[in-house]
């Protein structure tokens, strides 16, 4: 909203600079966003033409409707500076030739939605251009001049805060005004030329038969004031804010008028504003005659009485303010003191202050006018207490920490994604990930669905970077995905996922590292390392079923289980999927739902005594059928529970020269140890050799030379 320095001076004596005024308003809660200087010789106000004026662009918070006018800002300044506020009284001269003997039936059918409706008929109006001062006034605050009648109603709205509307009286059928709810499906063409379909919750101004305006929102085209208009009916009213807001929102029709009505105009200022408008209409629009004011009354808000305890104010603000100092501030703001005893004051705020409904509102006013800069900063005396931890937050931060330390870069993608991604990733109809949550009002189609898994967007990140010739990428994301819950909860299930993608080089570019690309075992190792932080037991990898993860390459991915529940997948992304993103290189990925780890109790490790006797190891390489999985042999050996066999691990896998085509060589290290004594070579040999024999015969294997 804009106000001019000269306009404010109509109400208060101002002798401070524009910068000081701007600073004061900002520091009292009405932020001045911009000041512009206007230098002109044109007369700005009727009486005193200033050579130089300042226009302040204000940001008024939605609780301060009373400040949406020049008068409101002036009143605020009067309270801040404790100076006098003056609003010229207006008297209408009903003597001939101005007197119009005419009355109009005005009725309010819904008195809850319309508190007061004042109508007045003005005849012999000459529609034309506004005088220069009025045009300039409007121009300075960014409003276009239309004609003298419309300009006057706008002038009153901006100067005094009361929206008005002028009807072409001759176009009102039956010369009657009815304030009523619209009929379901009733239509009206508004001033902007669009036809609106109304419902019964909306309040309209109607003539005998049809709506001629949507109350507080916009007038109708049928009764618009035009150059041919001779007689007008001027409306000044108070409508219930909630009702206007609902209507303006439903019709998507915000206007300067509805902006004010939905915040609440001053119920005590309706008549005064109407009088000012009539006076100007008579003065400016050429020899007009006016009727008496015809008033219809509904339920107008009444003044409230609210208890105020100065002690409470001191406690909340945290400053030693004196009672009379506080009461004086409230008085300056137009709040009446009804009565008081030692601890309590009974106060009554003016009706224009819709924001003052309870004690805390007085406290706010006091702190604001005292000035936040005058409240000392201190520190609370807090008792020492331990609060519960948030397990989900810990889960998320430790996941990020591990992955960052693995040399990966964290990405953050929007939680909403392109519906195309689900199609691109060939997610099957039965997959819960296809069942996305859609936004009712997305920014765009590309950002219209909540993501159900992280992989598609992180693949989009690869696509973006490859376009800039960045091909060695190691990225991770930790964030929420949103799964539709079949249960009764209205909210979806929010899982915390961690996803990693690797593509390009295996090692940093260097003179010393081999020039190799990442492969399956890099992503698998990373997943193993990562998962080990969350649980050392219960994690299993199973060969992936391709209908589950159709976007992963068959034979190159594993499903990840935790305590027999699937929590994710790892492996190589299918090139067919990557083609959709113009990615021609191999990309390895894992994605894991971390939520199952959130209820892992704090697990403190117990110390294990160190082995007292040395370990003796034997390395044996077997030549085996190529398709035999290493896991099968390891499990076979372990399940035999061989005495002294402490652990086994694979130290070599080899195919190629000297190995038959459909075979592979698997080197296993066997570690033997006793808790009681040092084992001798010969006893280890005996155990080991018989074990080897069993393995050979079980798997039809040979020893490698």
């Amino acid at each position: 909203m804009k106000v001019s320095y000269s306009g404010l001076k109509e109400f208060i004596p101002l002798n401070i600079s524009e910068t000081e005024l701007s600073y004061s308003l900002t520091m009292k809660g009405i932020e001045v966003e911009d000041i512009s200087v206007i230098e002109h010789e044109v007369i700005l106000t009727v009486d005193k033409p200033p050579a130089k004026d300042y226009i302040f662009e204000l940001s008024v918070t939605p609780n301060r409707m009373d400040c949406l006018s020049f008068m409101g800002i002036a009143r605020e300044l009067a309270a801040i500076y404790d100076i006098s506020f003056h609003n010229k009284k207006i008297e209408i001269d009903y003597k001939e030739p101005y007197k119009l003997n005419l009355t109009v039936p005005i009725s309010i059918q819904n008195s809850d939605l319309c508190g007061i409706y004042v109508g007045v008929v003005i005849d012999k109006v000459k529609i034309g251009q506004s005088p220069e001062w009025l045009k300039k006034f409007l121009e300075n605050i960014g409003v276009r001049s239309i004609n003298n009648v419309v300009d006057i109603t706008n002038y009153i709205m901006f100067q005094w805060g009361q929206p008005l509307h002028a009807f072409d009286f001759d176009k009102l059928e039956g010369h009657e005004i009815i304030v009523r709810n619209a009929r379901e499906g009733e239509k009206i063409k508004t001033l902007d030329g669009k036809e609106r379909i109304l419902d019964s919750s909306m309040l309209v101004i109607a003539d005998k038969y049809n709506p001629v305006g949507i109350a507080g929102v916009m007038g109708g085209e049928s009764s618009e004031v035009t150059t041919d208009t001779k007689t007008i009916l001027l409306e000044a009213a108070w409508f219930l804010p909630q009702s206007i807001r609902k209507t303006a929102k439903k019709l998507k029709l915000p206007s300067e008028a509805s902006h004010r009505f939905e915040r609440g105009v001053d119920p005590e200022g309706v008549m005064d504003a109407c009088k000012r408008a009539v006076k100007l209409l008579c003065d400016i629009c050429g020899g007009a005659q006016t009727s008496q004011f015809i008033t219809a009354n509904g339920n107008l808000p009444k003044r409230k009485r609210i208890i105020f305890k100065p002690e409470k104010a001191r406690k909340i603000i945290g400053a030693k303010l004196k009672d009379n100092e506080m009461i004086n501030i409230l008085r300056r703001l137009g709040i009446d003191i009804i009565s008081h005893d030692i601890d309590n004051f009974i106060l009554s705020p003016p009706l224009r202050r819709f924001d003052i409904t309870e004690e805390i509102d007085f406290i706010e006013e006091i702190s604001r006018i005292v000035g936040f800069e005058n409240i000392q900063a201190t520190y609370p005396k807090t008792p020492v207490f331990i609060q519960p931890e948030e397990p989900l937050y810990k889960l998320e931060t430790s996941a990020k920490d591990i992955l960052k330390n693995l040399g990966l870069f964290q990405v953050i993608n929007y939680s909403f994604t392109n519906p195309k991604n689900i199609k691109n990733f060939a997610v099957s109809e039965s997959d819960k990930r296809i069942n996305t949550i859609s936004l009712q009002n997305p920014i765009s189609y590309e950002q219209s669905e909540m993501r159900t898994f992280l992989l598609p967007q992180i693949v989009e990140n690869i696509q973006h970077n490859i376009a800039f010739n960045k091909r060695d990428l190691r990225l991770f994301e930790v964030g929420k995905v949103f799964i539709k819950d079949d249960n009764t909860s209205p909210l979806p299930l929010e899982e915390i996922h961690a996803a990693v993608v690797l593509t390009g080089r295996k090692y940093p570019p260097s003179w010393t590292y081999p020039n190799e690309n990442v492969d399956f075992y890099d992503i698998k190792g990373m997943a193993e390392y990562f998962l080990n932080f969350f649980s050392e037991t219960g994690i299993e990898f199973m060969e992936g079923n391709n209908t589950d993860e159709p976007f992963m390459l068959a034979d190159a991915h594993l499903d990840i289980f935790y305590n027999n529940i699937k929590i994710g997948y790892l492996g190589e992304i299918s090139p067919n999927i990557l083609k959709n993103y113009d990615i021609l290189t191999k990309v390895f990925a894992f994605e894991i739902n971390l939520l199952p780890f959130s209820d892992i109790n704090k697990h403190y490790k117990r110390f294990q005594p160190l082995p007292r006797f040395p370990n003796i190891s034997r390395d044996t390489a077997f030549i085996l059928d190529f398709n035999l999985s290493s896991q099968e042999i390891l499990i076979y050996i372990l399940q035999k529970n061989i005495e002294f066999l402490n652990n086994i691990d694979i130290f070599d896998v080899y195919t190629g020269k000297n190995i038959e085509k459909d075979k592979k060589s698997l080197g296993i290290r066997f570690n033997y140890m006793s808790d009681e004594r040092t084992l001798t070579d010969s006893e280890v040999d005996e155990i080991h050799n018989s074990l080897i024999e069993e393995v050979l015969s079980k798997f039809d294997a040979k020893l490698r030379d």
Partner: protein
Amino acid sequence: MLEKIKNILSQANEELEKVSDLAGLDNIRVSYLGKKGHLTLILRTLGSLSPEERPVVGDSINKAKAELEEKISLKKETLEKTTSKSSTKLLDLTLPGRTPFKGAYHPITQILNEICDIFTSLGFTVSQGPEIELDFYNFEALNIPAEHPARDMQDTFYVSDNVVLRTHTSPIQIRTMQKRKPPLKIIAPGKVYRCDSDITHTPMFHQIEGLHVDKDLSFSHLKGLLIQFLQKFFSADTKVRFRPSFFPFTEPSAEVDIGCMMCGGSGCRVCKGTGWIEVLGAGMVHPQVFRNVGYDPAEFTGYAFGLGIERFTMLRYGINDIRLYYENDIRFLEQFK
């Protein structure tokens, strides 16, 4: 006997002359002075000598040992010097070492962690809540009823009529207060969503909100806390000012500005010529919010504050385009290693 000692010593000297590396020197030390070294072995034969001979021979062995020890240590010093200046280098020490990959948090995460750390050091603990939220928690309970104009302050993404993407992390405050009784000292970091996308707004961004509820907390305490925080995050001489503002869930409400660090307060593009940059919203918890969660506003008071991580990140790193945050361009991310 004495002759033998002399011979051993001269042989040792000869070997010392020849030796050219530290390993060889150590071999010499071991073979003469070690447990089974020549001189040590001779010392053990003292017992077989006559009582007259013993002190003479013993003394001579000890002298020989001392002499040899000194010579070895001298030799060691010279060897250490010469090996480092050897003319044929074994290594090109200037070649870069074998470093592993270095990763990085997204800058948003770095700043979020930093801010969380400051508040946890002040006794706040982290609370979390859903990102898709009921209208009740996002608005109603926070004193923003359906037909309140304050709803216009936040452009809301709707999932259904009463389910929204949270527009702030304040619903976490409500959920936490419903679960726990005061005293309460929490911060709620996380993603929030507003239906707004232009050069200065992304439809998703990150917030941290704080809430402290106890007996006798005041606006003065809020000022103390936030000034301390801002001066820790920015710099000890950062100027801070509080301006009255409006939020439905706090009263009195404040917006908090810091003196512009780009221009030092004289006015520039970053502060739009005002010398001040708005960084925080804050206030005393509105009594209605307390009533909504079953706290007695006569007994408890509290303050709350909220800030946008994107803004703090921009100010810290001088990032000038908010859209860079969510493009995830590696050339951007790599700058924050």
